[in-house]
């Protein structure tokens, strides 16, 4: 059994950092905060690597199958017999892989931020938040209990909220962080209800038990889940789809993607960490975690595939028109996650069918490397040029050599040019798609072409093209602290592809040979190169071709440029419908009707008492008269009416 403490420390150290810096950072170590945070993370990275080594090469494999180990868990909150939230650690290939990815990227970002965030007023707070995020993300990936995952899921959401809103005095940043939180929250509602559904039928919240019960067709739980159906869809499918909605929200899948581009308001390293490498792939991870259950329900998988493909294509198209470099990267992220999603969607369980699963995880892994690299590079550029807009950039290759090279590598990687990391992973995805579902394959192919195009559009318009007129002072590339992560990640982006990934991660735990057909990979590569050349032709030298093209297909271009008017749609829904049609009436109702009734009773009482005052007329004779009438009335009542 692995050493529990050493594993538990991986998430806990960042938490320590968060508490330490969060409580005392501002006062005591506002300067040294960076180093504290980085150091803690360094340790947990080391531990993570150690754990990974231990798992993959030592304890993980039992007669050729990677096991799901739960070295430790305790009951945190018991709802009823068997249904309880346990806090635990679960080691299996993907969680270990994620441990490595998260810690490494996070470490890179920590280091990078030392220089990038230097001199910020809330430097300590920044690192505290980073710590919180890392903690939550690590907790998420090692969750042994679906509700535990939900908990960390929420924590991840809030820490991303905090980090996006880091520049809290920028209204745009505030808007962005609110948007991000609320949209993901909305998705989480789906996740929550999904959990309720699944757990209701599985009578457990524990991942292993749940998966085991819901995947064995013999078990009563499975029968119940498949038997029960709502508007013609089985409860199982409902549960999975709802859970997937949660995942889609976090992973910015269509149509819940709108928060991701705005999330770029956060500091660039944060974008690199959260909105490129780690948090946004949580959705993919979730689906992968529950994949055995998903594989029991074809409709659910179709949904996953469909959403994945459409998001991939859609995002790629939008990315071609954006001018804010971080937004371009954001959309490309979305597109790449789309790849991972549909890879899972088309995958089967076990053996060759499981290729998609492996591919997806593989792509997740490589993507983390090069996308983080891209963002950090972009960060360096922005750091240098003080702008996100392409039009302010150009010909920076001689000013930022290292950034330039690493950025180029990343672009090549993402465009799937051999022998860079992206090539291999994307290759596997396409292969899986080809075998499973041609339609998906063709779309994916097209998308990868687009990917190459917009990435190089980005690349050329930053580092080539017209000469950016530089104003103000310019302090180099930001020094060692910023360059080191770039270089390391660049190495990763080059080499990550050569890992025999299938040996480690596969849908059923058994090793999967990644067989490489050069004849198959001709098409994708060609498509990719085509995209690159088009981009080069359009953007390498300053010219007016792009503008002409844009003008020539104006309507479409505008539509795409405005991201197919999704934001407008959402604004319509929230402002017009939620606020005006529900909120306002509710408030009005409360103020006037509910309150009104109360006041009305009071006022009527007052009114009556005013009306009847005349009987107290002050005339003693009338008093006597009423006296007599009273007697007569009562006597009459009790003699004739009320015997």
């Amino acid at each position, binding site marked *: 059994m692995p050493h529990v403490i050493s594993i538990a420390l991986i998430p806990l150290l960042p938490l320590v950092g968060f508490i330490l810096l969060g409580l005392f950072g501002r006062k005591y170590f506002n300067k040294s905060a960076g180093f504290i945070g980085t150091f803690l993370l360094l340790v947990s990275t080391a531990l993570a690597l150690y754990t990974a080594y231990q798992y993959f090469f030592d304890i993980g494999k039992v007669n050729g199958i990677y096991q799901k180990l739960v070295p430790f868990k305790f*009951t945190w909150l018991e709802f009823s017999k068997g249904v309880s939230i346990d806090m635990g650690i679960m080691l299996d290939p993907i969680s270990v892989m994620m441990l490595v990815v998260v810690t490494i990227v996070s470490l890179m970002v920590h280091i990078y931020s030392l220089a990038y965030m230097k001199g910020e007023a809330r430097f300590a707070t920044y690192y505290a938040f980073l710590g919180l995020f890392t903690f939550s993300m690590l907790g998420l990936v090692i969750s042994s209990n679906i*509700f535990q995952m939900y*908990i960390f899921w929420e924590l991840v959401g809030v820490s991303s909220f905090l980090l996006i809103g880091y520049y809290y*005095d920028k209204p745009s940043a*505030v808007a962005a962080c609110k948007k991000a939180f609320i949209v993901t*929250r909305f998705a989480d509602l789906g996740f929550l209800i999904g959990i309720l559904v699944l757990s209701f039928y599985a009578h457990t919240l524990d991942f292993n038990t749940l998966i085991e019960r819901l995947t064995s067709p013999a078990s009563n739980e499975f029968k119940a889940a498949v038997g029960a159906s709502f508007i013609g869809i089985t409860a199982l499918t409902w549960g999975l789809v709802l859970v997937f909605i949660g995942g889609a929200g976090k992973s910015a899948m269509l149509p819940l993607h709108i928060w991701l581009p705005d999330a770029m308001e956060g500091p660039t390293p944060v974008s690199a960490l959260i909105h490129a490498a780690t948090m946004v792939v949580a959705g993919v991870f979730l689906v992968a975690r529950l994949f055995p259950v998903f594989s029991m329900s074809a409709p659910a998988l179709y949904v996953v595939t469909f959403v994945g493909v459409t998001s991939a294509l859609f995002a790629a198209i939008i990315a071609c028109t954006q001018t804010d470099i971080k937004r371009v990267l954001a959309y490309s992220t979305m597109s790449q996650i789309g790849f991972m999603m549909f890879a899972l969607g088309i995958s089967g369980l076990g053996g060759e069918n499981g290729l998609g699963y492996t591919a997806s995880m593989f792509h997740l892994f490589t993507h983390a490397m090069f996308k983080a690299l891209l963002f950090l590079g972009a960060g360096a550029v922005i750091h240098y040029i003080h702008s996100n807009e392409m039009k302010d950039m150009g010909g920076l290759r001689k000013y930022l050599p290292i950034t330039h090279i690493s950025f180029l590598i990343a672009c090549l990687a993402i465009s799937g040019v051999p022998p860079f990391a992206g090539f291999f992973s994307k290759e596997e995805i396409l292969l899986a798609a080809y075998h499973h579902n041609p339609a998906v394959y063709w779309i994916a192919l097209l998308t990868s072409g687009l990917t190459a195009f917009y990435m190089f559009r980005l690349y050329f318009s930053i580092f080539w093209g017209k000469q950016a007129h530089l104003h103000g002072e310019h302090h180099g590339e930001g020094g060692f602290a910023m360059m080191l992560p770039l270089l390391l990640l660049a190495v990763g982006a080059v080499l990550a592809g050569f890992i025999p990934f299938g040996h480690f991660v596969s849908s059923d735990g058994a090793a999967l040979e990644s067989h490489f057909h050069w004849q198959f990979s001709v098409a994708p590569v060609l498509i990719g190169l085509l995209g690159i050349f088009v981009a080069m032709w359009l953007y390498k030298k300053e010219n007016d071709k792009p503008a002409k093209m844009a003008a020539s297909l104006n309507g479409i271009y505008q539509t795409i440029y405005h991201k197919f008017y999704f934001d407008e749609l959402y604004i319509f829904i929230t402002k017009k419908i939620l606020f005006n049609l529900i909120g306002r009436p509710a408030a009005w109702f409360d103020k006037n009707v509910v309150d009104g009734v109360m006041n009305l009773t009071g006022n009527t009482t007052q009114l009556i008492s005013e009306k009847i005052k005349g009987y107290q007329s002050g005339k003693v004779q009338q008093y006597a008269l009423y006296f007599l009438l009273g007697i007569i009335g009562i006597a009459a009542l009790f003699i004739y009416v009320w015997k």
Partner: protein
Amino acid sequence: MNLTLLILLPLITAIAILLVKNATQVKWVALAGASAQFILAIVLLFAFNKERANGNVSQMLFELQYKWFPAWNISFHIGIDGISVAMILLTAFVVVAGVLVSWNITDKTKEFYFLLILLSLGAYGFFISLDLFILFFFLEIAVIPKYLLIGIWGSGKKEYAANKLALMLMGGSALVLVGMLGLYFSSSLKSFDLMVLSKLHIPTEVQKICFPLLFVGFGVFGALFPFHTWVPDGHSSAPTAGSMFLAGISMKLGSYGCLRVAISLMPEGAMQYANIIIVLSSIAILYGAFATMMQKDLKYINAYSSVSHCGLIFLGLGMLTKTAMTGAVMQMVSHGLMTALFFAVIGMIYERTHTKQVNEMGGLLKVMPFITTVLFIAGLCSLGLPGLSGFVSEMTIFVGSWEHTDTFHRIATIAACMSIVVTAVYILRAIGQTAMGPLKAGYENLQDARWNEKLAAIVLLIGIVAIGFAPFWLTDLINPATELIMQKISIIK
């Protein structure tokens, strides 16, 4: 562990407050008294757990019974189970915080603290009483102090609010009175004693009449839709500590009464009316949430969100499953702490900016990081962030509600779940406008929290986080009690 201490201590404190001379002494006496209560409550918790650990399984622990008006066979009968302990802890936390927050009350300090302590006296008495009569007695004791607190130290249209509150609450207690008389005369051995009543079976037709009376009566205190309308005005015009006590403690009197008296005495009545309760509460949850979205005034925002959150409590009660009921109790505690914290912070902000309108604030994070951070945490707790108390209780309620399989309950549950999104919307709007964004002019040199305010906030935060991080101690406290209540219901089922 003698429970009468819980009543004597506030009483002594109150008297001491009356005796001492100047304002500062009053404050310190009050603080001393409050912290003594606090310690006592903690001690009580441990004593209780110890007793249970020693295998004492009787429903109520530390029972005491003194004859009082034997002619009516009323007895001063007190005792506690897990639920009461939880509520007592809540009260203790809120009282300390309230005393601390209102440290710089200058106008009629003595009276102010006297009333605060009196209020706490009522609350403690209510939570420990096992006799309907004294339960009612303490319930009403708690009303007038609220009225005076709002009316004298309040702000805005305070007199209207105070009147509304006092009258509606009295209306509620009038219904309670009738209901409890019904119970009293229902059985041959005329008794107000909860334990006695819960032993014998109350005739169904009596339950049909008395359950709604009692439930609605207590419901008025607990802001049961549509009787919640005193909440927004009352909370918003009360002084800081006043709103803290109102939302933190006295609204819980209502929901506690619903559970302890209405449901646990009259399970059949509960079954009868469960669906109505569920409908009302799920309306309240969403409707309160949406109404909150439209509010501009911080206190109104929190007041309406309280309506929504208390709706959750009633939902949990109405579901009549053990888990949901446990969740409801947890929600009482958590909402009490959370909303008290919220009001405390709002009070601090108001004291500095002299406005409660969110759109007149902005960027306060820059000038008062502590206060806004606390506001933030309170907000996050209110929107159910894991690690804070709100999440735990809400989730427990949801899971418990989901245990019903039919569509009606499912829909109610989903409606309730939706509230967490809406909550996120309004909380973030409020916080975004007050704490974040560019700093509004004129707020540049506002002071951050003083020691007393910090202390108050921290006390409440401790409570919130303690539940949020380690809910199991609370559930272990509550579960046996709800277990017992559910047994009666499940027998009828």
